[in-house]
């Protein structure tokens, strides 16, 4: 009996070891699968870090900014300063996130301060731009 038991327990040990191995394999599986797809995935972008994409977007946006700002008529350079200021307050998305879902109260607090500050900008910036632009008129004939 003892022998059989011993055998059974050995079996158990072996089995669990085998399973442990399988688990390990499985845990590594995603990596393994990717390695298999290899250059293919690399070329298709399957494994590309989103940072690369964001960086590309950033670079192209700088080009767009360059051209779009040079095409602004000098007569509207003051409104341009006001409106770029207004749109830079899109940082409000970070503030909203902090106030909305931050797990820590202190983070939510920072977010609330940020939210108040940029709200001044959002409303102030767009409205003052609107006020300025409303003044630019053509000769009435």
């Amino acid at each position, binding site marked *: 009996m003892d022998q059989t038991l011993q055998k059974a327990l050995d079996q158990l040990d072996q089995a669990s070891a085998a399973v442990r191995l399988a688990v390990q394999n499985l845990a590594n599986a995603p990596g393994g699968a990717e390695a298999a797809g290899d250059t293919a995935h690399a070329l298709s972008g399957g494994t590309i870090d989103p*940072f690369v994409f*964001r960086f590309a977007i*950033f670079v192209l*946006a700088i080009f767009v*900014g*360059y051209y779009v*700002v*040079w*095409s602004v*008529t*000098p*007569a*509207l*350079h*003051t409104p*341009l*300063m*006001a409106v770029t*200021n*207004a*749109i*830079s*307050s*899109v*940082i409000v*998305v*970070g*503030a*909203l*996130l*902090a106030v*909305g*879902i931050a*797990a820590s109260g202190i*983070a*939510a607090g920072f977010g*609330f*301060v*940020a*939210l*108040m*500050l*940029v*709200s*001044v*900008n*959002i*409303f*102030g*910036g*767009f409205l*003052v731009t*609107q*006020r*300025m*632009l*409303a003044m630019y*008129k*053509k*000769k009435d004939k």
Partner: protein
Amino acid sequence: MNANFASFLYLVSGVLFIMALRGLSHPTTSRQGNLYGMIGMGIAITTTLALATPSAGRFGLIVLGLAIGGGVGAVTARRIAMTSMPQLVAAFHSLVGLAAVMVAAAAIYAPESFGIGTAGDIHAQALIEMSLGVAIGAITFTGSVIAFLKLDGRMSGKPITIGGRHFINAALGIALIVLIVLLVTSESKLIFWLIVAASLVLGILLIIPIGGADMPVVVSMLNSYSGWAAAALGFTLGNLALIITGALVGSSGAILSYIMCKGMNRSFISVILGGFGGETTAAADDGIERTVKQGSADDAAYLMMNAQKVIIVPGYGMAVAQAQHALREMADKLKANGVDVKYAIHPVAGRMPGHMNVLLAEANVPYDEVFELEDINSEFAQADVAYVIGANDVTNPSARDDKSSPIYGMPILDVDKARTCLFVKRSLGSGYAGIDNTLFYKDGTMMLLGDAKKMTEEIVKAMDH
């Protein structure tokens, strides 16, 4: 909301911001453009709320924050005088800078909520991006506050130069880099706040040595900074709207700084190093006796009423005196009398790009009577009178003729080519660049000494006689 769809909406709001700037290529499309900007902001806010789905309590907080800030902003926008635009823009920049710092702080204190890792295990990349964002944000904050104080006259415009400041700045810069490295390795909140503190100090030190008159370039540069700060945080939050907008604002500020420097024929570096142009200096008394022909409002009224063509050249003094409305009245009188009246705007007239245009627009001057330097400079030769009101440097012929002049090479308005040149200013003092204007002593020049607004009003009265 689905994350892909949200990203798409952020892209849409980025594109709307591009359209907003694009609209400014012409006055007729500009209002539409501003509307696109508002819609873009609305989409960004709504999308974020839909993604975050805050609890009712938190939602209340958000509404409260928006309402308080929005109220203050709306009232400010309505009340502010057009002549105070430079200050206002500086003040607004400081808010964006501080907000960037606060958002980064929130991210450090609650990394899970921002998806950048867990407390004690924030992704290194996110920490780097964030510390760049927070450093630029903090510099923008204090820098803009100083710019605001100088522009608003609450602090002397004189450059405040501390000995060894370049050394101190360099040391602070190196300290910042070390601190960022430490933050990435330790993720300590203390170090985060040290970064904030060092950047705040750096912001002050960078801006105080710059003279009040150079502030516009600084404001534009800080505008650019606020963009880069937003973009850096955009990388941390993985938010397309922030990345695109940050790049737009960053380019915009940099280009405007460049335009101003080129218009002044100075290098950006020399502006940033500071120490230039504090208070306006008096006319250089070089001992040579020079005669000035002085005239009265009646003389000016007579001259202009009998002219065929008058070109008005406004400058910083018109802004100071708030003379734009009186000026418009004068132009109306002349036009009613059959005189051809045009306005000539130098690219750096005033203290801010487009400064004169916005003031003239405020006084209901139609924008198709207002011309840029290249478009009108050849017409001075055919003009009977150039009415120079509160402008000085932008007419100074030494920029054209005198190689030793500090403004040599800067394009100027050729007012000296007009038959008669009327100068409205309070004295024979110099302008922003602090250099004498030989035009005052020229034959065809008549000085109308006095406040720009009062003098113009007197001329208007004299025209009725």
